[in-house]
């Protein structure tokens, strides 16, 4: 049987060969002085390397690890706990701001509608009016109080069904089956 290279012998010494390969190698090394010498070198190196001692952990090692873990936990709690509260608070503040803005806007709209003509706000609104067509502006102009009163007095007529049902103007409209 031919001799193996140093790499294969190294793998044999360090038990990195498959069991069947290791069996073949073991038989060969038992009969081959050259390969047995290489195996011996590897084993001696293995033993020699055992002479390197290093320090043990200090007695306060565990305490230091626990302190670091506790500090990290606290930091994480700060980040995820307080941070979450802050995000929630910011969100609620934003919602509150939006609600306030909507309420204020509506309030202003109502105030504009109910405002008598000629007031300060009305002047401001009419100052912007030139951009609106004149007819639209005329429609949007609030009626004088006496006209408004007349309209309100006639409203009861529209509420009376008999009057509306017999309204001549309606009977003059073309019927659906008329061609």
């Amino acid at each position, binding site marked *: 049987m031919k001799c193996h290279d140093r790499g294969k012998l*190294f793998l044999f010494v360090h038990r990195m060969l498959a069991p069947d390969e290791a069996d073949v190698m073991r038989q060969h090394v038992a009969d081959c002085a050259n390969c047995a010498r290489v195996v011996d070198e590897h084993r001696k*190196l293995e033993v020699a*390397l055992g002479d390197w001692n290093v*320090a043990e*952990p200090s007695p306060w090692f*565990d305490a230091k690890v626990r302190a670091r*873990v506790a500090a990290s936990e606290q930091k994480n709690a700060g980040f995820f706990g307080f941070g979450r509260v802050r995000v929630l608070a910011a969100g609620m503040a934003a919602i509150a701001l939006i609600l306030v803005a909507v309420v204020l806007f509506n309030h202003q709209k109502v105030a504009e509608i109910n405002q008598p003509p000629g007031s300060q706000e009305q002047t401001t609104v009419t100052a912007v009016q030139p951009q609106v067509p004149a007819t639209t502006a005329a429609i949007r102009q609030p009626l004088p109080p006496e006209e408004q009163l007349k309209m309100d007095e006639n409203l009861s007529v529209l509420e009376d069904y008999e009057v509306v049902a017999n309204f001549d103007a309606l009977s003059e409209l073309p019927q659906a089956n008329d061609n």
Partner: protein
Amino acid sequence: MVVDSDLDLMLRVREGDAGSFDELLRRYRTPLVKYFCRMLRDEALAEDLAQEAFLRVYNARHRYRPDARFTTWLYRIATNLALNAIRDAKGRQRQDGNGSTRDGETSFEFVDPRASVEQQMIETDRGRMIREAIEALPENQRAAVILHKYQDVDYRQIAGILKVSESAVKSLLFRAYETLRVRLEPLVRGGQL
């Protein structure tokens, strides 16, 4: 008495069991500190990085997947920390202009100004020779040899830790041990120093 496996302990740590974390700490503090000591030589830095490794294990407990061995995961974290520390030290030495070359590798030394008397007493001449020979190895070979020889980690696990193939680990280890055999010839021949 049934001894809990690392995996069981880690799963309990994930559920928030502090006692299980203490048990993992008890099991692995010595191997981990020694691993960092051998990788970096600086004892104070070794302790600091070992603590950092445990902290990272704790902080990453929810991401732990039980499909890999706990020690593979632990040593992967530790190896990344050690290799980063070595690279940082190399970078600082390059900036300081102190880097020297040995066999094409930029050598570096963590010169610990606080090297304890105890450490000096522990380190024999034989120990110093071994340390210097291993420190002169390229980073990956050094990590592979230390994991294999001193941490008793299987070559398959080393492949997982270094994220290389098993055949690459075999090759790394063979080249490293061959280099060490040449450098440590006086020890290998059995001569007393």
